[in-house]
Protein backbone atom coordinates (compact mmCIF):
# COMPACT_ATOMS: atom_id res chain seq x y z
CA UNK A 1 0.00 0.00 0.00
CA UNK A 2 2.53 2.62 -0.63
CA UNK A 3 -0.10 3.20 -3.25
CA UNK A 4 -3.58 4.44 -2.65
CA UNK A 5 -6.56 2.16 -2.78
CA UNK A 6 -8.79 3.21 -5.70
CA UNK A 7 -12.58 3.32 -5.87
CA UNK A 8 -14.31 -0.03 -5.99
CA UNK A 9 -11.41 -2.03 -4.63
CA UNK A 10 -13.29 -2.95 -1.49
CA UNK A 11 -17.02 -3.51 -1.32
CA UNK A 12 -19.35 -0.71 -0.28
CA UNK A 13 -19.88 -1.80 3.32
CA UNK A 14 -16.14 -2.02 3.97
CA UNK A 15 -15.68 1.44 2.49
CA UNK A 16 -18.46 2.79 4.68
CA UNK A 17 -17.00 1.12 7.75
CA UNK A 18 -13.48 2.45 7.16
CA UNK A 19 -15.02 5.82 6.32
CA UNK A 20 -16.63 5.86 9.75
CA UNK A 21 -13.39 4.75 11.42
CA UNK A 22 -11.49 7.48 9.61
CA UNK A 23 -14.05 10.15 10.43
CA UNK A 24 -14.03 9.08 14.07
CA UNK A 25 -10.25 9.10 14.24
CA UNK A 26 -10.00 12.51 12.59
CA UNK A 27 -12.70 13.94 14.85
CA UNK A 28 -11.01 12.57 17.95
CA UNK A 29 -7.62 13.84 16.77
CA UNK A 30 -9.04 17.29 16.08
CA UNK A 31 -10.21 17.40 19.65
CA UNK A 32 -6.95 16.15 21.11
CA UNK A 33 -4.71 18.27 18.87
CA UNK A 34 -6.72 21.41 19.44
CA UNK A 35 -4.53 22.81 22.20
CA UNK A 36 -1.30 22.20 20.34
CA UNK A 37 -2.57 23.64 17.12
CA UNK A 38 -3.75 26.73 18.96
CA UNK A 39 -0.25 27.15 20.37
CA UNK A 40 1.90 26.30 17.37
CA UNK A 41 -0.52 27.30 14.66
CA UNK A 42 -2.14 25.42 11.79
CA UNK A 43 0.72 26.54 9.55
CA UNK A 44 3.07 24.13 11.27
CA UNK A 45 0.76 21.19 10.65
CA UNK A 46 0.23 22.37 7.08
CA UNK A 47 3.95 22.55 6.42
CA UNK A 48 4.47 19.16 7.97
CA UNK A 49 1.80 17.87 5.57
CA UNK A 50 3.51 19.55 2.62
CA UNK A 51 6.77 17.93 3.76
CA UNK A 52 5.19 14.47 3.97
CA UNK A 53 3.63 14.97 0.55
CA UNK A 54 6.93 16.02 -1.01
CA UNK A 55 8.86 13.18 0.62
CA UNK A 56 6.32 10.58 -0.48
CA UNK A 57 7.46 11.35 -4.00
CA UNK A 58 11.06 10.41 -3.24
CA UNK A 59 11.56 6.78 -4.14
CA UNK A 60 14.08 4.45 -2.61
CA UNK A 61 15.09 1.04 -3.95
CA UNK A 62 13.48 -1.93 -2.21
CA UNK A 63 14.81 -4.81 -4.25
CA UNK A 64 14.11 -6.76 -7.42
CA UNK A 65 14.30 -3.54 -9.39
CA UNK A 66 11.33 -2.04 -7.61
CA UNK A 67 11.13 0.91 -5.29
CA UNK A 68 9.11 2.07 -2.35
CA UNK A 69 8.57 5.43 -0.78
CA UNK A 70 8.11 6.86 2.68
CA UNK A 71 4.60 6.76 4.15
CA UNK A 72 5.66 9.09 6.93
CA UNK A 73 3.01 8.23 9.50
CA UNK A 74 5.35 7.08 12.24
CA UNK A 75 7.79 9.89 11.48
CA UNK A 76 5.08 12.54 11.64
CA UNK A 77 3.83 11.07 14.89
CA UNK A 78 7.26 11.30 16.52
CA UNK A 79 7.74 14.86 15.28
CA UNK A 80 4.38 16.51 15.83
CA UNK A 81 2.55 14.07 18.09
CA UNK A 82 0.02 11.38 17.20
CA UNK A 83 -3.08 13.56 17.02
CA UNK A 84 -1.64 16.26 14.84
CA UNK A 85 -0.01 13.50 12.78
CA UNK A 86 -3.38 11.86 12.08
CA UNK A 87 -4.59 15.24 10.83
CA UNK A 88 -1.44 15.75 8.78
CA UNK A 89 -1.69 12.34 7.11
CA UNK A 90 -5.41 12.78 6.46
CA UNK A 91 -4.74 16.14 4.89
CA UNK A 92 -2.08 14.65 2.63
CA UNK A 93 -4.49 11.95 1.49
CA UNK A 94 -7.30 14.43 0.97
CA UNK A 95 -5.10 16.64 -1.20
CA UNK A 96 -3.86 13.64 -3.16
CA UNK A 97 -7.43 12.53 -3.75
CA UNK A 98 -9.03 15.88 -4.56
CA UNK A 99 -6.20 17.87 -6.15
CA UNK A 100 -4.24 15.09 -7.83
CA UNK A 101 -6.92 12.41 -8.41
CA UNK A 102 -4.76 9.91 -6.55
CA UNK A 103 -6.78 7.52 -4.38
CA UNK A 104 -10.49 7.11 -4.83
CA UNK A 105 -12.92 9.40 -3.03
CA UNK A 106 -15.00 6.48 -1.74
CA UNK A 107 -11.75 4.80 -0.69
CA UNK A 108 -10.62 7.87 1.23
CA UNK A 109 -11.78 6.34 4.50
CA UNK A 110 -9.81 3.18 3.78
CA UNK A 111 -6.70 5.11 2.82
CA UNK A 112 -6.91 7.35 5.89
CA UNK A 113 -7.48 4.37 8.15
CA UNK A 114 -4.50 2.44 6.78
CA UNK A 115 -1.98 5.17 6.08
CA UNK A 116 -3.17 7.92 8.37
CA UNK A 117 -4.33 6.14 11.49
CA UNK A 118 -2.76 2.68 11.71
CA UNK A 119 0.79 3.78 10.81
CA UNK A 120 0.60 6.80 13.11
CA UNK A 121 -0.76 5.02 16.15
CA UNK A 122 1.38 1.91 15.83
CA UNK A 123 4.47 4.04 15.22
CA UNK A 124 3.78 6.46 18.04
CA UNK A 125 2.84 4.02 20.72
CA UNK A 126 5.82 1.82 20.03
CA UNK A 127 8.05 4.91 20.08
CA UNK A 128 6.72 6.06 23.44
CA UNK A 129 6.85 2.56 24.84
CA UNK A 130 10.48 2.17 23.84
CA UNK A 131 11.34 5.57 25.31
CA UNK A 132 10.25 4.16 28.67
CA UNK A 133 12.89 1.45 28.54
CA UNK A 134 15.69 3.28 26.72
CA UNK A 135 18.12 5.65 28.50
CA UNK A 136 16.41 8.93 29.42
CA UNK A 137 18.04 11.28 26.93
CA UNK A 138 17.18 13.02 23.68
CA UNK A 139 19.12 10.64 21.46
CA UNK A 140 16.97 7.70 22.49
CA UNK A 141 14.14 8.98 20.39
CA UNK A 142 16.01 8.02 17.22
CA UNK A 143 16.11 4.24 17.75
CA UNK A 144 12.66 4.31 19.34
CA UNK A 145 10.99 6.03 16.40
CA UNK A 146 12.99 3.94 13.96
CA UNK A 147 11.53 0.79 15.45
CA UNK A 148 8.11 2.42 15.36
CA UNK A 149 8.50 3.20 11.68
CA UNK A 150 9.76 -0.29 10.93
CA UNK A 151 6.75 -1.87 12.59
CA UNK A 152 4.16 0.57 11.27
CA UNK A 153 4.44 -0.44 7.62
CA UNK A 154 3.94 -4.22 7.91
CA UNK A 155 1.16 -3.68 10.43
CA UNK A 156 -0.59 -1.42 7.94
CA UNK A 157 -0.06 -4.12 5.31
CA UNK A 158 -1.61 -6.62 7.70
CA UNK A 159 -4.53 -4.27 8.21
CA UNK A 160 -4.90 -4.05 4.44
CA UNK A 161 -5.01 -7.84 4.26
CA UNK A 162 -7.61 -7.86 6.99
CA UNK A 163 -9.73 -5.39 5.04
CA UNK A 164 -9.32 -7.54 1.97
CA UNK A 165 -10.58 -10.52 3.91
CA UNK A 166 -13.66 -8.53 4.90
CA UNK A 167 -14.41 -6.64 1.76
CA UNK A 168 -12.25 -7.86 -1.09
CA UNK A 169 -14.22 -8.55 -4.23
CA UNK A 170 -12.61 -11.90 -5.02
CA UNK A 171 -11.59 -14.82 -2.88
CA UNK A 172 -7.87 -15.25 -3.05
CA UNK A 173 -5.87 -17.30 -0.59
CA UNK A 174 -5.58 -14.93 2.33
CA UNK A 175 -2.47 -16.64 3.61
CA UNK A 176 -0.64 -15.96 0.40
CA UNK A 177 -1.86 -12.39 0.36
CA UNK A 178 -0.81 -11.81 3.97
CA UNK A 179 2.57 -13.41 3.45
CA UNK A 180 3.22 -11.46 0.29
CA UNK A 181 1.97 -8.17 1.71
CA UNK A 182 3.80 -8.41 5.02
CA UNK A 183 6.95 -9.81 3.46
CA UNK A 184 7.11 -7.06 0.90
CA UNK A 185 6.23 -4.36 3.40
CA UNK A 186 8.90 -5.44 5.84
CA UNK A 187 11.31 -4.40 3.08
CA UNK A 188 9.45 -1.13 2.56
CA UNK A 189 9.45 -0.74 6.34
CA UNK A 190 13.24 -0.92 6.38
CA UNK A 191 13.41 2.00 3.96
CA UNK A 192 10.83 3.79 6.10
CA UNK A 193 12.95 3.10 9.18
CA UNK A 194 16.19 4.35 7.60
CA UNK A 195 14.63 7.61 6.46
CA UNK A 196 12.85 8.08 9.78
CA UNK A 197 16.15 7.55 11.60
CA UNK A 198 17.95 10.05 9.40
CA UNK A 199 15.26 12.68 9.73
CA UNK A 200 15.10 12.33 13.49
CA UNK A 201 18.89 12.43 13.86
CA UNK A 202 18.96 15.64 11.85
CA UNK A 203 16.19 17.16 13.94
CA UNK A 204 17.69 16.06 17.26
CA UNK A 205 21.02 17.57 16.19
CA UNK A 206 19.58 20.90 15.06
CA UNK A 207 16.32 21.51 16.85
CA UNK A 208 15.79 18.93 19.60
CA UNK A 209 12.89 20.99 20.91
CA UNK A 210 10.89 20.05 17.82
CA UNK A 211 10.60 16.36 18.62
CA UNK A 212 7.19 15.91 20.21
CA UNK A 213 7.77 12.35 21.33
CA UNK A 214 10.81 13.40 23.37
CA UNK A 215 9.68 16.74 24.74
CA UNK A 216 9.87 15.40 28.27
CA UNK A 217 13.59 14.71 27.78
CA UNK A 218 14.63 18.31 27.14
CA UNK A 219 17.37 19.84 29.24
CA UNK A 220 16.96 23.05 31.28
CA UNK A 221 17.97 26.34 29.68
CA UNK A 222 20.79 28.54 30.93
CA UNK A 223 20.12 32.27 30.61
CA UNK A 224 22.72 35.09 30.88
CA UNK A 225 21.14 38.47 31.70
CA UNK A 226 22.23 42.02 30.80
CA UNK A 227 24.67 42.12 33.73
CA UNK A 228 26.20 38.74 32.92
CA UNK A 229 24.44 36.84 35.70
CA UNK A 230 23.49 33.26 34.91
CA UNK A 231 20.21 31.58 35.77
CA UNK A 232 18.56 28.28 34.90
CA UNK A 233 15.09 28.13 33.42
CA UNK A 234 12.88 25.15 32.68
CA UNK A 235 12.09 24.78 28.99
CA UNK A 236 8.64 25.59 27.63
CA UNK A 237 5.72 23.43 28.66
CA UNK A 238 7.21 20.03 29.35
CA UNK A 239 4.62 17.37 28.67
CA UNK A 240 4.02 15.53 31.91
CA UNK A 241 5.65 12.15 31.50
CA UNK A 242 3.17 9.36 31.89
CA UNK A 243 3.95 6.78 34.56
CA UNK A 244 6.39 4.28 33.15
CA UNK A 245 4.79 1.17 31.81
CA UNK A 246 1.44 2.75 31.13
CA UNK A 247 2.35 3.91 27.67
CA UNK A 248 3.93 0.58 26.98
CA UNK A 249 0.70 -1.09 28.02
CA UNK A 250 -1.40 1.24 25.88
CA UNK A 251 0.89 0.68 22.90
CA UNK A 252 0.76 -3.06 23.14
CA UNK A 253 -2.98 -2.99 23.74
CA UNK A 254 -3.62 -0.81 20.70
CA UNK A 255 -1.47 -2.96 18.44
CA UNK A 256 -3.15 -6.10 19.66
CA UNK A 257 -6.56 -4.53 19.27
CA UNK A 258 -5.84 -3.48 15.71
CA UNK A 259 -4.44 -6.83 14.62
CA UNK A 260 -6.72 -9.08 16.63
CA UNK A 261 -9.82 -7.02 16.02
CA UNK A 262 -9.24 -6.92 12.31
CA UNK A 263 -8.66 -10.62 12.14
CA UNK A 264 -11.75 -11.33 14.21
CA UNK A 265 -13.77 -8.92 12.14
CA UNK A 266 -12.47 -10.70 9.10
CA UNK A 267 -13.59 -14.01 10.40
CA UNK A 268 -16.99 -12.76 11.49
CA UNK A 269 -17.83 -11.73 7.97
CA UNK A 270 -19.45 -14.60 6.04
CA UNK A 271 -16.98 -14.43 3.16
CA UNK A 272 -14.07 -13.88 5.44
CA UNK A 273 -15.15 -16.76 7.59
CA UNK A 274 -15.31 -19.07 4.65
CA UNK A 275 -12.04 -17.63 3.53
CA UNK A 276 -10.01 -17.86 6.66
CA UNK A 277 -11.63 -21.01 7.95
CA UNK A 278 -12.46 -23.29 5.11
CA UNK A 279 -9.94 -22.21 2.52
CA UNK A 280 -6.89 -21.58 4.60
CA UNK A 281 -7.18 -22.85 8.12
CA UNK A 282 -7.52 -26.50 7.31
CA UNK A 283 -8.05 -27.70 3.78
CA UNK A 284 -5.28 -26.37 1.71
CA UNK A 285 -2.95 -24.78 4.19
CA UNK A 286 -0.03 -26.95 3.28
CA UNK A 287 -0.19 -26.54 -0.47
CA UNK A 288 -1.14 -22.86 -0.42
CA UNK A 289 1.65 -21.84 1.80
CA UNK A 290 4.52 -20.25 -0.01
CA UNK A 291 6.74 -20.15 3.06
CA UNK A 292 5.52 -23.31 4.63
CA UNK A 293 8.19 -23.37 7.30
CA UNK A 294 6.75 -20.51 9.30
CA UNK A 295 3.98 -21.43 11.71
CA UNK A 296 2.21 -18.22 10.80
CA UNK A 297 2.66 -18.69 7.09
CA UNK A 298 -0.99 -18.98 6.36
CA UNK A 299 -2.16 -16.48 8.87
CA UNK A 300 -4.07 -19.21 10.62
CA UNK A 301 -2.43 -21.02 13.50
CA UNK A 302 -2.37 -24.71 12.81
CA UNK A 303 -3.76 -27.00 15.45
CA UNK A 304 -6.46 -24.61 16.56
CA UNK A 305 -9.84 -25.81 15.51
CA UNK A 306 -11.79 -22.58 15.36
CA UNK A 307 -11.26 -20.41 12.34
CA UNK A 308 -12.11 -17.12 14.05
CA UNK A 309 -9.92 -17.70 17.04
CA UNK A 310 -7.18 -19.01 14.85
CA UNK A 311 -7.14 -15.96 12.56
CA UNK A 312 -7.24 -13.48 15.43
CA UNK A 313 -4.57 -15.37 17.29
CA UNK A 314 -2.30 -15.27 14.28
CA UNK A 315 -2.70 -11.50 14.09
CA UNK A 316 -1.95 -11.07 17.78
CA UNK A 317 1.06 -13.35 17.72
CA UNK A 318 2.35 -11.51 14.67
CA UNK A 319 2.17 -8.20 16.49
CA UNK A 320 3.78 -9.60 19.62
CA UNK A 321 6.65 -11.05 17.62
CA UNK A 322 7.13 -7.77 15.81
CA UNK A 323 7.13 -5.84 19.07
CA UNK A 324 9.70 -8.13 20.62
CA UNK A 325 11.89 -7.88 17.53
CA UNK A 326 11.42 -4.10 17.49
CA UNK A 327 12.38 -3.84 21.17
CA UNK A 328 15.45 -5.94 20.59
CA UNK A 329 16.52 -3.88 17.59
CA UNK A 330 16.01 -0.65 19.51
CA UNK A 331 17.92 -1.92 22.50
CA UNK A 332 20.79 -3.01 20.29
CA UNK A 333 20.81 0.29 18.46
CA UNK A 334 20.98 2.25 21.71
CA UNK A 335 23.76 0.07 23.09
CA UNK A 336 25.79 0.71 19.97
CA UNK A 337 24.98 4.42 20.08
CA UNK A 338 26.18 4.53 23.70
CA UNK A 339 29.41 2.84 22.84
CA UNK A 340 29.99 5.19 19.94
CA UNK A 341 29.65 8.31 22.10
Amino acid at each position, binding site marked *: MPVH*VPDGFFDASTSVATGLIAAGAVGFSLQRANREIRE*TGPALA*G*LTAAFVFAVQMVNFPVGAGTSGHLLGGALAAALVGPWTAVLVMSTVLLVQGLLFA*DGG*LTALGTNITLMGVVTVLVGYFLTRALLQVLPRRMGSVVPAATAGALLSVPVAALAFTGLYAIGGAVDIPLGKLATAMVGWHVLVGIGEAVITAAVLS*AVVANRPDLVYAARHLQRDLVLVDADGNTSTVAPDKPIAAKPAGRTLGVGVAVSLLVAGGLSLFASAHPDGLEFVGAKLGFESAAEDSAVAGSPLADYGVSGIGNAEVSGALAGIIGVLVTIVVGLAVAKLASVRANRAS
Partner: protein
Amino acid sequence: MSGDGLLVTVDSRVHRLPAHVKIVALFVLVLAVVSTPAAAFWAFGLYAVMLVAAVVTARLPVLLVARRLTVETPFIVFALLLPFVATGPRVDVLGLELSQSGVLGAWNVLAKGTLGVVAAIVLSATTGPRDLLAGLERLRLPATLVAILSFMIRYLSVVSDDLHRMRIARESRGYAGGRAGHLKAVAGGVGALFVRSFERGERVHLAMRSRGYTGRMPLLSTRGATSSQWLEGLAISLAAVAVALAVRVVGL
Protein backbone atom coordinates in the same frame (compact mmCIF):
# COMPACT_ATOMS: atom_id res chain seq x y z
CA MET B 1 4.90 19.55 -7.87
CA SER B 2 2.87 22.66 -8.29
CA GLY B 3 0.37 23.92 -5.76
CA ASP B 4 -2.23 24.08 -8.53
CA GLY B 5 -2.80 20.35 -8.64
CA LEU B 6 -4.01 19.20 -12.03
CA LEU B 7 -5.84 22.43 -12.83
CA VAL B 8 -6.28 23.07 -16.55
CA THR B 9 -6.87 26.76 -17.03
CA VAL B 10 -9.51 26.89 -19.72
CA ASP B 11 -13.01 28.27 -19.32
CA SER B 12 -15.92 25.84 -19.36
CA ARG B 13 -19.30 25.27 -17.78
CA VAL B 14 -17.69 22.76 -15.45
CA HIS B 15 -14.94 25.19 -14.45
CA ARG B 16 -17.53 27.80 -13.57
CA LEU B 17 -19.58 25.56 -11.27
CA PRO B 18 -19.09 26.22 -7.54
CA ALA B 19 -16.57 23.81 -6.06
CA HIS B 20 -18.84 22.39 -3.40
CA VAL B 21 -21.36 21.39 -6.06
CA LYS B 22 -18.62 19.57 -7.95
CA ILE B 23 -17.35 17.77 -4.86
CA VAL B 24 -20.84 16.53 -4.02
CA ALA B 25 -21.40 15.53 -7.65
CA LEU B 26 -18.15 13.57 -7.73
CA PHE B 27 -18.99 11.78 -4.51
CA VAL B 28 -22.51 10.83 -5.64
CA LEU B 29 -21.23 9.63 -9.00
CA VAL B 30 -18.48 7.46 -7.59
CA LEU B 31 -20.86 6.05 -5.00
CA ALA B 32 -23.25 5.02 -7.77
CA VAL B 33 -20.42 3.39 -9.72
CA VAL B 34 -19.00 1.55 -6.74
CA SER B 35 -22.36 0.11 -5.68
CA THR B 36 -23.05 -1.35 -9.13
CA PRO B 37 -22.42 -5.13 -9.34
CA ALA B 38 -19.47 -5.95 -11.55
CA ALA B 39 -21.49 -8.19 -13.85
CA ALA B 40 -23.76 -5.35 -14.99
CA PHE B 41 -21.51 -4.58 -17.93
CA TRP B 42 -23.96 -2.31 -19.74
CA ALA B 43 -24.15 -0.03 -16.70
CA PHE B 44 -20.40 0.55 -16.79
CA GLY B 45 -20.69 1.34 -20.48
CA LEU B 46 -23.24 4.02 -19.64
CA TYR B 47 -21.05 5.43 -16.86
CA ALA B 48 -18.15 5.65 -19.27
CA VAL B 49 -20.27 7.56 -21.77
CA MET B 50 -21.34 9.98 -19.02
CA LEU B 51 -17.78 10.61 -17.95
CA VAL B 52 -16.64 11.20 -21.51
CA ALA B 53 -19.44 13.75 -21.76
CA ALA B 54 -18.13 15.41 -18.58
CA VAL B 55 -14.55 15.48 -19.91
CA VAL B 56 -15.73 17.00 -23.20
CA THR B 57 -17.93 19.58 -21.48
CA ALA B 58 -15.01 20.54 -19.27
CA ARG B 59 -12.85 20.95 -22.41
CA LEU B 60 -10.06 18.86 -20.96
CA PRO B 61 -7.27 17.54 -23.17
CA VAL B 62 -7.80 13.79 -23.55
CA LEU B 63 -4.08 13.17 -23.35
CA LEU B 64 -3.88 14.74 -19.89
CA VAL B 65 -6.69 12.54 -18.62
CA ALA B 66 -5.03 9.47 -20.10
CA ARG B 67 -1.65 10.32 -18.63
CA ARG B 68 -3.13 10.87 -15.20
CA LEU B 69 -4.76 7.45 -15.29
CA THR B 70 -1.33 5.96 -14.61
CA VAL B 71 -1.78 6.58 -10.86
CA GLU B 72 -3.81 3.40 -11.07
CA THR B 73 -1.00 1.23 -12.41
CA PRO B 74 -0.15 -0.69 -9.22
CA PHE B 75 -3.74 -1.77 -8.90
CA ILE B 76 -3.93 -2.77 -12.54
CA VAL B 77 -1.08 -5.14 -11.80
CA PHE B 78 -2.97 -6.43 -8.80
CA ALA B 79 -6.12 -6.81 -10.89
CA LEU B 80 -4.32 -8.71 -13.64
CA LEU B 81 -3.00 -11.18 -11.08
CA LEU B 82 -6.46 -11.90 -9.70
CA PRO B 83 -7.57 -14.36 -12.42
CA PHE B 84 -4.49 -16.46 -11.69
CA VAL B 85 -4.48 -16.49 -7.91
CA ALA B 86 -8.19 -16.45 -7.09
CA THR B 87 -9.91 -19.64 -5.99
CA GLY B 88 -13.12 -21.17 -7.31
CA PRO B 89 -14.24 -22.70 -10.61
CA ARG B 90 -11.90 -22.33 -13.58
CA VAL B 91 -12.53 -21.19 -17.12
CA ASP B 92 -10.37 -21.73 -20.15
CA VAL B 93 -9.31 -18.51 -21.87
CA LEU B 94 -6.88 -18.77 -24.78
CA GLY B 95 -5.34 -21.83 -23.29
CA LEU B 96 -4.93 -20.24 -19.86
CA GLU B 97 -6.79 -21.71 -16.97
CA LEU B 98 -8.25 -18.73 -15.12
CA SER B 99 -10.45 -18.38 -12.09
CA GLN B 100 -13.95 -17.30 -13.03
CA SER B 101 -14.43 -15.08 -10.00
CA GLY B 102 -10.91 -13.80 -10.52
CA VAL B 103 -11.70 -12.57 -14.01
CA LEU B 104 -14.83 -10.84 -12.80
CA GLY B 105 -12.90 -9.42 -9.85
CA ALA B 106 -10.22 -8.04 -12.13
CA TRP B 107 -12.87 -6.39 -14.25
CA ASN B 108 -14.51 -5.02 -11.11
CA VAL B 109 -11.30 -3.39 -9.85
CA LEU B 110 -10.31 -2.06 -13.26
CA ALA B 111 -13.70 -0.67 -14.25
CA LYS B 112 -14.57 0.98 -10.96
CA GLY B 113 -11.06 2.24 -10.31
CA THR B 114 -10.73 3.76 -13.76
CA LEU B 115 -14.14 5.44 -13.65
CA GLY B 116 -13.31 6.78 -10.19
CA VAL B 117 -10.00 8.22 -11.32
CA VAL B 118 -11.50 9.86 -14.42
CA ALA B 119 -14.23 11.42 -12.29
CA ALA B 120 -11.65 12.70 -9.83
CA ILE B 121 -9.56 14.10 -12.68
CA VAL B 122 -12.57 16.08 -13.90
CA LEU B 123 -12.88 17.67 -10.45
CA SER B 124 -9.20 18.42 -9.98
CA ALA B 125 -8.67 19.69 -13.53
CA THR B 126 -11.57 22.13 -13.32
CA THR B 127 -11.17 23.43 -9.77
CA GLY B 128 -8.39 25.67 -8.51
CA PRO B 129 -6.96 25.07 -5.04
CA ARG B 130 -8.59 28.11 -3.53
CA ASP B 131 -12.02 27.17 -4.87
CA LEU B 132 -11.55 23.66 -3.62
CA LEU B 133 -10.78 24.95 -0.13
CA ALA B 134 -13.78 27.27 -0.24
CA GLY B 135 -15.92 24.33 -1.35
CA LEU B 136 -14.74 22.12 1.50
CA GLU B 137 -15.36 24.98 3.90
CA ARG B 138 -18.92 25.30 2.58
CA LEU B 139 -19.38 21.57 3.02
CA ARG B 140 -18.63 22.11 6.71
CA LEU B 141 -15.24 20.44 6.84
CA PRO B 142 -13.90 21.41 10.31
CA ALA B 143 -12.15 24.80 10.20
CA THR B 144 -8.90 23.40 11.58
CA LEU B 145 -8.71 20.89 8.75
CA VAL B 146 -9.48 23.54 6.16
CA ALA B 147 -6.70 25.67 7.62
CA ILE B 148 -4.17 22.83 7.57
CA LEU B 149 -5.19 21.98 4.01
CA SER B 150 -4.83 25.59 2.98
CA PHE B 151 -1.29 25.88 4.35
CA MET B 152 -0.34 22.54 2.91
CA ILE B 153 -1.47 23.50 -0.58
CA ARG B 154 0.14 26.92 -0.33
CA TYR B 155 3.52 25.50 0.65
CA LEU B 156 3.50 22.41 -1.54
CA SER B 157 5.44 24.12 -4.29
CA VAL B 158 7.77 25.86 -1.83
CA VAL B 159 8.71 22.60 -0.10
CA SER B 160 9.00 20.73 -3.41
CA ASP B 161 11.30 23.46 -4.71
CA ASP B 162 13.45 23.15 -1.58
CA LEU B 163 13.67 19.42 -2.13
CA HIS B 164 14.53 19.90 -5.79
CA ARG B 165 17.26 22.45 -5.01
CA MET B 166 18.77 20.17 -2.41
CA ARG B 167 18.83 17.29 -4.88
CA ILE B 168 20.54 19.42 -7.50
CA ALA B 169 23.07 20.56 -4.94
CA ARG B 170 23.77 16.96 -3.98
CA GLU B 171 24.08 15.74 -7.55
CA SER B 172 26.26 18.65 -8.60
CA ARG B 173 28.68 17.74 -5.82
CA GLY B 174 29.34 14.57 -7.76
CA TYR B 175 27.15 12.19 -5.84
CA ALA B 176 27.08 9.02 -7.92
CA GLY B 177 24.54 6.74 -6.34
CA GLY B 178 24.65 3.08 -5.58
CA ARG B 179 21.90 1.54 -3.53
CA ALA B 180 23.09 2.12 0.01
CA GLY B 181 24.64 5.44 -0.93
CA HIS B 182 21.43 6.49 -2.56
CA LEU B 183 19.31 5.68 0.46
CA LYS B 184 21.73 7.46 2.78
CA ALA B 185 21.89 10.57 0.64
CA VAL B 186 18.14 10.69 0.25
CA ALA B 187 17.61 10.19 3.98
CA GLY B 188 20.07 12.93 4.94
CA GLY B 189 18.45 15.37 2.54
CA VAL B 190 15.02 14.55 3.85
CA GLY B 191 16.12 15.30 7.41
CA ALA B 192 17.35 18.73 6.44
CA LEU B 193 14.16 19.29 4.49
CA PHE B 194 12.04 18.63 7.54
CA VAL B 195 13.95 21.10 9.71
CA ARG B 196 13.58 23.67 6.96
CA SER B 197 9.87 23.04 6.51
CA PHE B 198 9.20 23.03 10.21
CA GLU B 199 11.09 26.28 10.77
CA ARG B 200 9.15 27.84 7.94
CA GLY B 201 5.99 26.70 9.68
CA GLU B 202 7.15 28.50 12.81
CA ARG B 203 7.96 31.67 10.90
CA VAL B 204 4.63 31.60 9.11
CA HIS B 205 2.92 31.35 12.47
CA LEU B 206 4.93 34.34 13.70
CA ALA B 207 3.96 36.27 10.58
CA MET B 208 0.32 35.42 11.18
CA ARG B 209 0.44 36.53 14.80
CA SER B 210 2.20 39.70 13.70
CA ARG B 211 -0.89 40.54 11.73
CA GLY B 212 -3.31 39.96 14.56
CA TYR B 213 -4.07 36.23 14.19
CA THR B 214 -5.74 34.92 17.33
CA GLY B 215 -6.75 31.43 16.26
CA ARG B 216 -9.46 32.00 13.71
CA MET B 217 -8.76 31.99 9.99
CA PRO B 218 -10.87 34.32 7.86
CA LEU B 219 -13.56 32.53 5.85
CA LEU B 220 -12.82 32.01 2.18
CA SER B 221 -16.22 31.39 0.70
CA THR B 222 -18.93 33.94 0.27
CA ARG B 223 -21.21 32.77 -2.53
CA GLY B 224 -23.56 29.82 -2.36
CA ALA B 225 -24.82 27.90 -5.37
CA THR B 226 -28.14 28.58 -7.09
CA SER B 227 -30.54 25.69 -7.55
CA SER B 228 -29.91 25.69 -11.29
CA GLN B 229 -26.19 25.33 -10.59
CA TRP B 230 -26.91 22.40 -8.32
CA LEU B 231 -29.04 20.83 -11.02
CA GLU B 232 -26.42 21.37 -13.70
CA GLY B 233 -23.62 20.07 -11.53
CA LEU B 234 -25.49 17.01 -10.36
CA ALA B 235 -27.02 16.12 -13.76
CA ILE B 236 -24.49 13.41 -14.61
CA SER B 237 -24.36 12.09 -11.05
CA LEU B 238 -28.13 11.77 -10.88
CA ALA B 239 -28.16 9.94 -14.19
CA ALA B 240 -25.56 7.57 -12.75
CA VAL B 241 -27.69 7.02 -9.66
CA ALA B 242 -30.64 6.22 -11.94
CA VAL B 243 -28.53 3.63 -13.76
CA ALA B 244 -27.36 2.12 -10.48
CA LEU B 245 -30.94 1.88 -9.26
CA ALA B 246 -32.04 0.40 -12.57
CA VAL B 247 -29.45 -2.35 -12.20
CA ARG B 248 -30.88 -3.21 -8.81
CA VAL B 249 -34.49 -3.18 -9.99
CA VAL B 250 -34.17 -4.76 -13.42
CA GLY B 251 -31.36 -7.07 -12.52
CA LEU B 252 -28.47 -7.49 -14.88
